[in-house]
């Protein structure tokens, strides 16, 4: 007979143990993906196909979202800056916000929702319908043939989508700041050009988006491969991909920002 305290500890311990086991399995899975990656990258047409599905088909949502986020940033930023007589710095505010933070972070969140969930569902359904087993029995390694190209397709697409998001956001900021609110176009662009540092801001933003792409792609392929082969299992895995990706993106963002911009 166990007392309530030990039962409570057990109920706390089981999920922690399971999470650690899953994390260990995910690490081993990553190693197996990296091991077969030269094969996947040598047959680059496989990765190109995944760049099309994960990257190109996500362009619309990235472009529209980037544009709207940039417009909202400009509207909100102008209201604040004009109080301090610094409305001409609107371009700097929009560009730094997007390039350093919002481009990589919101781009990655959108990528996880649009492409990450699709990758998980596709791999999960391939598992449920024995397509991965069929591949194994044909002496074709499914990790090399299916998983690695999807993983690298995601890793390559993510920074490009984040860059597109930032570019569209800056354009949205320009539309609101210059075309709608009447700021001087020369001042908008020149202040942005002088204040945004290539290495500190742009490169760090790109590094962030590569890290997010790596994390989201790994979560998406792992959850698909690990999904129980049932309808419920695949739907749960798809949900986990979006939720886990969002948490990992935001957590990684805190860490990376602390390292990059505060020198911690």
């Amino acid at each position, binding site marked *: 007979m166990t007392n309530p305290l030990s039962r409570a500890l057990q109920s706390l311990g089981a999920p922690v143990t399971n999470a650690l086991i899953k994390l260990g399995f995910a690490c081993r899975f990553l190693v197996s993906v990296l091991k077969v990656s030269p094969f996947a990258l040598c047959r680059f047409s496989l990765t190109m196909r995944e760049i099309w599905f994960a990257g190109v088909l996500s362009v619309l949502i990235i472009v529209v979202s980037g544009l709207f986020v940039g417009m909202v940033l400009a509207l909100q930023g102008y209201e604040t800056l004009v109080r301090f007589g610094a409305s001409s710095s609107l371009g700097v505010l929009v560009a730094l916000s997007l390039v350093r933070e919002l481009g990589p972070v919101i781009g990655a969140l959108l990528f996880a929702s649009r492409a990450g969930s699709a990758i998980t569902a596709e791999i999960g*359904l*391939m598992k449920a*319908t*024995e*397509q991965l*087993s*069929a591949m*194994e*029995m*044909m*002496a*074709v*390694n499914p990790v090399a*043939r299916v998983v690695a190209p999807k993983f690298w397709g995601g890793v390559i697409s993510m920074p490009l989508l984040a860059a597109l998001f930032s570019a569209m956001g800056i354009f949205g900021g320009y539309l609101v700041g210059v075309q709608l609110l009447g700021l001087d176009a020369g001042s908008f662009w020149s202040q942005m050009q002088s204040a945004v540092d290539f290495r500190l801001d742009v490169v760090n933003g790109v590094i962030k988006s590569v890290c997010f792409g790596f994390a989201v792609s790994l979560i998406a392929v792992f959850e698909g491969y690990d999904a129980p082969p049932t309808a419920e299992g695949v739907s749960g895995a798809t949900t986990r991909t979006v939720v886990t990706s969002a948490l990992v993106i935001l957590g990684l963002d805190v860490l990376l920002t602390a390292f990059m911009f505060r020198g911690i």
Partner: protein
Amino acid sequence: MVVFDDVSFGYGEQPVLRDLSLRIDRGQVVAIMGGSGSGKTTLLKLIGGQLRARTGRVLVDGDDVGTMNETTLYGMRRKLGMLFQFGALFTDLSVYDNVAFPLRERGKLPESVVRDLVLMKLHAVGLRGAAQLMPAELSGGMARRVALARAIALDPAIMLYDEPFTGLDPISLGVTGQLIRELNDALGGASIVVTHDVAESLAIVDYVYFLADGAVVAQGTPDEVRASTHPFVKQFINAEPDGPVPFHRDAEPYATALNLERP
């Protein structure tokens, strides 16, 4: 070509195969029969190395599958072809590309040769006219026949069939049975057919094993099986509801469950 030597296997605490021993020789078509959950599909997965035996040895062409590393396992699978229960066609590829898949992945053949081979295999299963269709456009039986064409694409030495006759119309059923037999005779390999279809399988196989509770309970040639007085074989062949294999899973009495009488 395939030998099970005192093989035991289970999922978690649940035993599926218990000290199973059987052998399939070159040139033979062997049927594995048994009720649902008797371990038939598990047996195929042990041959393919997708599962590993807990005890005992599974030998394929003399090599112990249980001791193979990943590289040798993939090498061994080059000798195998497997028809899955529901076809397992790649849903993003056309019928043509599905059959061409193993040829392109493993064969390194010129595309003109791949085309000829694909059309030959599709012709063999009567679906050359469906080459450009997608799997979603096929009926269940057609999908199974395409999967068969894909499984035999590289003329494997050992063919594994998981319920090849399920869902086929009578014409396709007869043709598929004949195809399994002719393919095996032409290649001189071995075929293992996991099936419930007694009539069709007894017409084409050389030997039959009956599995129950993870062990071989009866075996013999089709003639021996037809003449058998073994209760399990009789029940299976005559599709009798009563016999050593219960139709109902263990449960409380029906009347008690319906609250018609007290426990």
